[in-house]
């Protein structure tokens, strides 16, 4: 059995090494995007497909403003920067400034349809019989010394319908001026020139982040050397992603070092030998190798949070090692195989319980949870094999001759729960704990708002704000998707939506909106416009032409057909509209409607609920909703995991016995959120996730208490104590993290594991000790 176990371990470890070597040829495929941990949204399928189409079009942008007091210098530097970034495949630059030839061909395309193209204001005026305003406007514009209209245009369009239509439909809030083929803005004596592009890679991919940052820094240095006093303001998901990775890496490095130091000190302090430390590291390394290999094999990439949570669970492998080496305090036996045998029941029950819990977790349609579950289950299994089947081969040492005081000290907690003389204190402690729990439960605040859960770096946020302020780029937090079976249906649906959006704009709930039908109205709308122009405006044409000195045939000959969206490619649509054409396959067409200056979301939600072909999209809101839904789901799965483990443990302890074993772990899981609420911490998805770790470790503590009896009780208590200290050192420190998710994880573990350790001795049953090993 022992040899077979060893062979199995070696085979699995070699396979793991091979898989890791194969997958890591191009570096660790670590994904820092927390969003990628989440499942597909719970929106309708067409919305998911439209969002995927948007992503594939490269919605991740990089925006840079290059500032210098001299416009030409700023422009040259901006062009240099853009060129370098494009040449190095960091971005593909966006043509913000349409070429004159593009504008001319756009006008030519629209011109034959000018009587069907009316801005909303003009349409209202004609509908209300106020055509005189349009006649007078044309005259005023023709008379202006700053007139857009030349003889040719006035002759062909005396009412200047087309220029007014283009001006109305392409108005935007940007402060950027078009100058010398770039967009620029002057502020306090400094010119800022815009460089904007779509990222050519995944902004959350570590390799792309590093490359983008390196090239950006290089070109920034080069521009500073060449142009002197140059200011560069930048924003984009790639910078936020890179910062998150660096922060997580720094924190993980620091906390990992403290954790490692703690484990080393604990080992030397308690075992006074190098061997336990070396073998503990072997167990940890085997666990991480197993977890990493299986995760990479099934998922291809590794989520940052899965690594953090998963590595935490692998930390349990140190606990397994502690239990093994505490058996060396048993003077009665010097056979290593006997040490493994003594802990096998507790270890096996602990492993199976944890794996069952993780399998339950893996059943959720939640990529992040699945990764954590798979990482932990496979890692723990390999660590288990290491301790039970490898340690006895490598451990040839005689029993420890010291340690009596540690063993005695570790029993203080056990005695507190079981000695008659501490009964009063026990009740007092339980009463206090329950009172604190009830008080905390009343103060629990749930927070799923992803905007608060993100800890964005202040300097990058300040740069983003400066860019928004200088360029007048509004933060578009919400948008609608509008669906139809063909473009005409979608344009008509947009026009219907526009009626409601106009009302919301008038009441200040939104600042503005933009939709493709503002530029290419539906056929139905164009026919209506045409009829309005014919019936209301054209009767004034002769008089108008006489006033301006034009005496020819009517310039408004009826054109053929109407303008259709199919006449435009994405490139020929003005930049303000091209990104709104999201998805188009036979039978389903989706357009986006962008919104800015949103003050209140519920009216927008209500609007979207009016039609199944309209969906409100807000990444932050939908993420928050998803976080909320999966916080609840994680808690439900935790309850299911307890139920499954209860069934399993009942096979050995009976229903009541199993429940007694589970109570300490359940107590810790229930009380931890209450106690952290007393510290003013909100309860989030990340806290809920941490409870899984408390579930698994807490069960281990309890199981070792239940399985140990007699003198072994002391060694089990000592091992539990050591593993608690190492867990708190490793993960309690995470509470200091600036990354909210990691902080929440750390603080929950700190409180939960402490509780699990304190409550674990109650799992023992002194009257019915487990004498039969598993």
């Amino acid at each position, binding site marked *: 059995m022992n040899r077979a176990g060893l062979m199995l371990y070696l085979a699995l470890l070699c396979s793991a090494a091979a898989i890791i070597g194969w997958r890591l040829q191009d570096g660790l495929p670590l994904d820092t995007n927390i969003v990628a941990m989440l499942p597909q949204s719970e929106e309708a399928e067409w919305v998911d497909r439209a969002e995927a189409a948007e992503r594939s079009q490269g919605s991740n942008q990089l925006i840079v403003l290059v500032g210098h007091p001299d416009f030409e210098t700023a422009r040259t530097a901006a062009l240099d920067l853009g060129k370098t970034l494009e040449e190095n495949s960091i971005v593909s630059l966006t043509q913000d400034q349409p070429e004159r030839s593009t504008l001319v061909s756009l006008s030519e395309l629209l011109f034959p349809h000018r009587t069907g193209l009316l801005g909303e204001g003009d349409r209202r005026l004609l509908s209300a019989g106020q055509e005189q305003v349009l006649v007078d406007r044309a005259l005023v514009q023709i008379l*202006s010394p700053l007139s857009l209209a030349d*003889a040719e245009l006035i002759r062909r369009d005396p009412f200047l319908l087309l220029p007014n239509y283009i001006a109305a439909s392409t108005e935007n809030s940007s402060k950027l001026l078009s100058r010398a083929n770039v967009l620029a803005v002057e502020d306090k004596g400094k010119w800022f020139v815009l460089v904007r592009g779509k990222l050519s890679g995944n902004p959350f991919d570590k390799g792309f982040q590093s490359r983008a940052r390196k090239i950006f820094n290089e070109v920034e240095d080069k521009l500073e050397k060449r142009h002197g006093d140059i200011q560069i303001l930048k924003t984009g998901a790639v910078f936020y992603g890179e910062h998150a990775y660096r922060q997580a890496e720094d924190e993980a490095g620091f906390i990992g070092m403290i954790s490692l130091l703690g484990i080393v000190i604990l080992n030397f302090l308690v075992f006074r030998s190098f061997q336990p430390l070396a073998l503990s590291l072997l167990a940890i390394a085997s666990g991480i190798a197993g977890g990493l290999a299986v995760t990479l094999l099934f998922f291809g990439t590794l989520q940052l949070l899965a690594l953090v949570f998963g590595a935490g669970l692998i930390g349990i492998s140190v606990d397994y090692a502690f239990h093994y080496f505490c058996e060396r305090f048993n003077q009665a036996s010097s056979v290593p195989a006997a040490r493994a045998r003594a802990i096998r029941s507790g270890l096996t029950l602990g492993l199976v319980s944890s794996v069952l819990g993780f399998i339950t977790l893996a059943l959720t349609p939640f990529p992040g949870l699945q990764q954590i579950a798979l990482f932990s289950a496979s890692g723990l299994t390999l660590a288990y094999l290491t301790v039970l089947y490898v340690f006895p081969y490598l451990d040839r040492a005689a029993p420890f001759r010291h340690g009596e005081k540690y063993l005695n000290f570790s029993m203080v907690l056990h005695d507190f729960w079981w000695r008659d003389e501490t009964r009063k204190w026990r009740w007092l402690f339980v009463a206090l704990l329950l009172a604190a729990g009830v008080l905390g439960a009343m103060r629990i605040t749930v927070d799923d708002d992803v905007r608060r859960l993100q800890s964005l770096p202040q300097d990058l946020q300040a740069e983003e704000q400066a860019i928004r302020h200088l360029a007048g780029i509004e933060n578009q937090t919400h948008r609608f998707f509008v669906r139809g079976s063909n473009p005409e249906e979608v344009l008509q649906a947009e026009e219907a939506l526009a009626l409601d959006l106009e009302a919301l704009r008038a009441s200040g709930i939104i600042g503005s909106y933009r939709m493709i039908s503002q530029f290419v109205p539906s056929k139905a709308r164009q026919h209506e416009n045409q009829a309005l122009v014919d019936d209301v405006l054209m009767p004034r044409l002769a008089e108008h032409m006489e006033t301006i*000195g034009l005496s020819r045939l009517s310039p408004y000959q009826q054109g053929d057909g109407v303008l259709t969206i199919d006449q435009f490619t994405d490139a020929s649509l003005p930049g303000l509209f091209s990104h709104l054409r999201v998805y188009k396959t036979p039978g389903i067409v989706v357009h986006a409607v962008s919104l800015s200056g949103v003050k209140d979301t519920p009216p927008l939600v209500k609007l979207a609920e009016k039609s199944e072909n309209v969906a409100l999209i807000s990444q932050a809101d939908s993420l928050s909703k998803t976080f909320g839904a999966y916080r609840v789901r994680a808690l439900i799965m935790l309850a299911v995991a307890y139920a499954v483990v209860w069934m399993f443990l009942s096979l050995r302890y009976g229903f009541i016995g199993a429940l007694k074993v589970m109570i300490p772990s359940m107590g810790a899981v229930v009380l931890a959120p209450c106690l952290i609420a007393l510290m003013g911490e909100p309860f989030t998805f990340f806290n809920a996730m941490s409870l899984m770790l408390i579930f698994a470790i807490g069960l281990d503590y309890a199981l070792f208490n239940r399985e140990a009896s007699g003198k072994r009780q002391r060694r089990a208590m000592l091992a539990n104590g050591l593993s608690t200290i190492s867990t708190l050192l490793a993960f309690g420190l995470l509470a200091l993290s600036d990354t909210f998710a990691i902080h929440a994880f750390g603080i929950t573990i700190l409180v939960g594991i402490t509780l699990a350790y304190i409550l674990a001795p109650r799992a023992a049953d002194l009257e019915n000790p487990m004498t039969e090993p598993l």
Partner: protein
Amino acid sequence: MCAMIIVATFPAQSAPLILGEGEAVMGRFVQARYLRDFDKPILSEGEFFLLPKSALIWLTEIPFFSRMIIVEEGLSQGLKGAEVTRLSFKQFPGFKLLRDTLENSLSGNWAPLEEMAEAELLPVDGKYTLRFSPKTNGLTLPFAYLNFEIGDFLETVEIVKSNGDRDVITFSDQQVAPVAEVSAAVENSKEKQP
């Protein structure tokens, strides 16, 4: 504190006047738009008010009352108290240059225009002329060139378009006054409109 600065480079004849700090100018204009193949020029006339670094107000009285206010960011045109046009210079940046040129020329600030045109005011028959055809640095201009005729103040500007259209604006009755006084005149002019 009326500052009428004599420019020393033109000793033979009186130099154009330059508005001093805190001064503004107002007067009348007549505009003729000559559009190719049109039967007749389109004529208009009215008052103008220049508040330097703030606004140029163009109050048309004939053929009908209308009002145009040109500021740094763009222009708006109003008719019977309602705005009928709004044009942002960020959409049409070439107009910003035309606006700045009109402001400089009406306020007698010729030096930047001479620099841009790489030409100097030319004395002709007791007046000055300037052909303004600036280097555009990639900017698309709404004109091919401008011809200025200058006495004490700007007297005529001819805006010539690349397609042969041209606008001739003749200014008269210019008065230099403190900004507050011209601003008050702007307010009074509103009452004239129906």
